[in-house]
C-alpha cells in the first residue's frame, strides 16, 4: 500500500519534471529559431495581425469597463477620506502596474492562445506536424517561432492600449458621471505615474507574452502526449493551455512585482 503510493507519487513527479523539461526545450528551440535566417516575415505579420490587431476590440471593451469600475469603486472609497482628487492616480497606478498587463495577457490567452493550442493540436492529431517533418520543414520554427515573435510585438502594444483606454474609462465614470474635476483627474494621472512604473508594466507584459505563447503552443504541439488523440485530446489540451497560462500569468505577476517593488 505504502510502496504503491510512493510509486504513484514518484511517477507523477517524474512526469512533471519531464513535462517541464520538454516545455523549456520547446521554448529554447523556438527562441533560437527566431534568430536563424531567413526571418519568416510573412508568417510574423500574419500572426501579429491575428494576435494583435484582431484583439483590438476585445481589449478596448475590457479596458473601458475595467477603467469605469475602477473609477466607480475608487471614487466611493476615496470619498470616505475626502480624497476624490486622487482618483486619477489610483486608476492609473492600478492599470499601469497591475491590471493592464495582467488583464491584457488573460484576454489574449482567451482569444488567441486558445486558438493557437487548438490549431496546433488539430495539426498534431491529423498528422500535419508529421507531414511537415517529412517535407524537411522544422515544425517548431514553422509553427511556434512566428507566434512567439508576434506575441512579443503585440502584447506590450495591447497593454499600452489597455492602459490608455482604461484611464479614459476611469475618467468617464469619475469625471463625467460622478463629477470629479477633469483637470484634477488628469493631473493626478500624469503626476502619479513614473517611468519605473511604465517599465515595470511593460516588463510584465513582455514576460507574459512569452509565457502565454509558449504554454499554448506547447500544449497544442504535444497534444498526443498529454491529452490523447482526436477531438477530445484537442479540447483537453486547449482547456489546459488556457488554464495553465492564466495560472502562470498570476505566478509570474507575483514574482516580477516582488522584484520590482
Amino acid at each position, binding site marked *: 500500500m505504502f510502496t504503491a503510493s510512493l510509486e504513484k507519487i514518484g511517477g507523477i513527479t517524474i512526469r512533471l519534471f519531464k513535462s517541464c523539461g520538454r516545455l523549456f526545450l520547446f521554448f529554447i528551440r523556438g527562441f533560437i529559431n527566431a534568430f536563424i535566417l*531567413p526571418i519568416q516575415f510573412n508568417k510574423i505579420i500574419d500572426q501579429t495581425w491575428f494576435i494583435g490587431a484582431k484583439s483590438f476590440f476585445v481589449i478596448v471593451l475590457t479596458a473601458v469597463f475595467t477603467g469605469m469600475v475602477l473609477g466607480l469603486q475608487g471614487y466611493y472609497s476615496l470619498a470616505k477620506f475626502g480624497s476624490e482628487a486622487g482618483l486619477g492616480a489610483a486608476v492609473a497606478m492600478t492599470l499601469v502596474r497591475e491590471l493592464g498587463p495582467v488583464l491584457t495577457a488573460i484576454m489574449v490567452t482567451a482569444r488567441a492562445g486558445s486558438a493557437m493550442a487548438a*490549431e496546433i493540436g*488539430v*495539426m498534431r492529431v*491529423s*498528422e*500535419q506536424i*508529421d*507531414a511537415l*517533418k*517529412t*517535407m*524537411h*520543414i522544422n515544425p517548431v520554427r*514553422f509553427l511556434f517561432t512566428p507566434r512567439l515573435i508576434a506575441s512579443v510585438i503585440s502584447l506590450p502594444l495591447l497593454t499600452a492600449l489597455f492602459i490608455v483606454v482604461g484611464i479614459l474609462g476611469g475618467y468617464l465614470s469619475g469625471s463625467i458621471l460622478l463629477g470629479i474635476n477633469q483637470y484634477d483627474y488628469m493631473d493626478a494621472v500624469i503626476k502619479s505615474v513614473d517611468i519605473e512604473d511604465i517599465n515595470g508594466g511593460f516588463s510584465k507584459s513582455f514576460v507574459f507574452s512569452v509565457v502565454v505563447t509558449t504554454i499554448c503552443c506547447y500544449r497544442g504541439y504535444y497534444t498526443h502526449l498529454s491529452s490523447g488523440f482526436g477531438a477530445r485530446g484537442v479540447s483537453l489540451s486547449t482547456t489546459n493551455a488556457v488554464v495553465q497560462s492564466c495560472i502562470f500569468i498570476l505566478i509570474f505577476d507575483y514574482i516580477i512585482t516582488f522584484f520590482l517593488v
Partner: protein
Amino acid sequence: MTAPLIQFVNLKKSFETQEVLKGIHLSIYSKEITAIIGKSGTGKSVLLKHIIGLIHPDSGEILINGEPVHLLSRGKIKAFQKELSYMFQDNALFDSMTIYENIALPLVENKYYKKNKIRDKVMDHIKELGLMGSEKKFPAQLSGGMKKRVALARALVTDPKVVLFDEPTTGLDPIRKKNVHTMIKEYQEKFEFTAVIVSHDIPDILNISQRIAMLDEGIIQFEGSKQDVLDSQSTIVNAFIRGEEALAKK
C-alpha cells in the same frame, strides 16, 4: 542483383507493452516498386515511418546503400532524407491552406527554387493530376479522390528519389483506386523513383509492384515477386490473397 537501397536487419519496435515489429528483415531496391501487404494493425505504417525517421527502432538496424544509419554522419542522413517523400494514409493536407499552397509548401519553405519556377512546377503537377480549377480551394472543399491527388502532387513536387505511400487508396471507390495505382505506376516509370507502398489492395497492388513483402505477426512472412506470391505455398500468404482470415489463423 544490385545492393538494396534500404535494408532492415532484425528491426524491433514496441509501443509500451505491445511488440509491433518483432525482427524485420527486408530489402528495398532502387527504382522498383515494393509493396508491403498485410492485415490492418500489423505494423506496416510503423515500418514505413522508420524509413523517413518519424519513428526510431528499439533495436536492429536500417542500412542505407549498405551503410548502417547509426554510422552515417548527420549530413548524410539529412541528404538522404531530402530525397524522400511521404504520402500519408489520411493525406495530412494543411486544411487552412489552399490546394496551391499545400503543393507548393515544401518548395517554398525549403527555398528549392525561385518564385516563378515554383509556380510553374506546382501548376505542372496540378495540371498533370487533373486538379485544374481547384488551386484556390481548400482541402475541405474537395472529394476524397481529389484530396488523394493533391497529396500525391505534394509528394512528387520535390522530384524525390524515394516515395513512401501509406495506403494511398484508402477510402476510394474501385475505379479511383485503379486510377491512383495506375498514376503511381506511370509516375514511377516516368521519374524512376523508388516506391514503397503499404497496401491491402489485392490484386491491384500485385500488378504494379516488382517486389512484394507480406508482414504478419510482427515479421516479414514472405518476400518476392508477383509470380512468387501466386506460386507461394504459404498458408498465411494464400489466405491473405484470398481474403480468408480463418485460414490464416490455422
